[in-house]
């Protein structure tokens, strides 16, 4: 039989809701957080004139408090695991709530797409040498993979396009990594939504 809201111990109810909202975190972390907040609530409820409403007002709703822990944990974890895909997914998951996350996520996606395009250029040059290259002329600047290369201008790079594209691809990859790590650190310092400081 479920207890009605009126008969629930407010402290136990708060902790139950907090633990539920913390479920994305590993069990030991969740237990440590709930134990600390339980201790805090016990101290606050023992104080003079303590009311549930006043305590929840300063601590925040369980969902908001849990979100602050989870978002920090996800970003810290992604930062320390140094897995770019995981870091990008974590940043993009916050893009609808934070302009910084949106800009960083978009920038990283653009850099990765650019990097992949350079890889494609390097891979396709030996396969289709006439369609891949850099064409320069008085009114022409074409770089990359073209179905119909301009006939009047000569391709300028030849096989030099291979190392050049590979270097550009590596630069894009590294730049995306630096951008995401700096962005994640900025997001950790300036969370998107959490109880007021």
């Amino acid at each position, binding site marked *: 039989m479920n207890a009605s809201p009126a008969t629930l111990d407010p402290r136990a109810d708060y902790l139950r809701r907090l633990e539920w909202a913390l479920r994305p975190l590993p069990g030991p972390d969740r237990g440590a957080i709930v134990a600390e907040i339980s201790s805090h609530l016990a*101290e606050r409820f023992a104080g003079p004139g303590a009311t549930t409403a006043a305590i929840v007002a300063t601590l925040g709703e369980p969902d908001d408090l849990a979100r*602050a822990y989870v978002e*920090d944990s996800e970003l810290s974890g992604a930062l320390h695991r140094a897995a770019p895909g995981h870091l990008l997914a974590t940043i993009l998951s916050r893009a609808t709530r934070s302009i910084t996350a949106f800009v960083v996520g978009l920038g990283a996606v653009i850099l990765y797409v650019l990097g992949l395009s350079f890889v494609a250029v390097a891979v396709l040059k030996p396969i289709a040498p006439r369609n891949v290259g850099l064409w320069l002329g008085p009114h022409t600047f074409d770089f990359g993979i073209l179905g119909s290369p301009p006939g009047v201008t000569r391709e300028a790079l030849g096989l030099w396009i291979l190392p050049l594209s590979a270097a550009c691809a590596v630069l894009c990859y590294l730049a995306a990594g630096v951008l995401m790590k700096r962005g994640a650190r900025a997001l950790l310092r300036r969370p998107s939504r959490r109880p007021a400081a």
Partner: protein
Amino acid sequence: MDITPWLAQLRKGAAELTVLSVIADGGECYGLQILERANVGGDIVSDGALYPLLSRLEKEGKLSARWVLEEGPHPRKYYRLTDQGAALVPVMIQAWTDFRQAMTRIVEKTR
């Protein structure tokens, strides 16, 4: 004029230095003690902002923590600065002092 969001951002920016300074000054202490000391001159850090911040500072290696079970009616988690945290505090205080002086020069001109 509602300046509440701006004020909240200001407090968030100051929270880390406030907490580290309180622990540097008062030695090992637990959450409620940190809150009381941090807010002695006004509302700087709320209960709900403190605990995730403590968790992050611990993960970043700036604080270490231990549970004390016997001391009071409830177990308490005590925090103290690590060597890394202790080295960071004077650097942050210097940066804060420079920032405050620069802001004071600008803001007092426009009074």
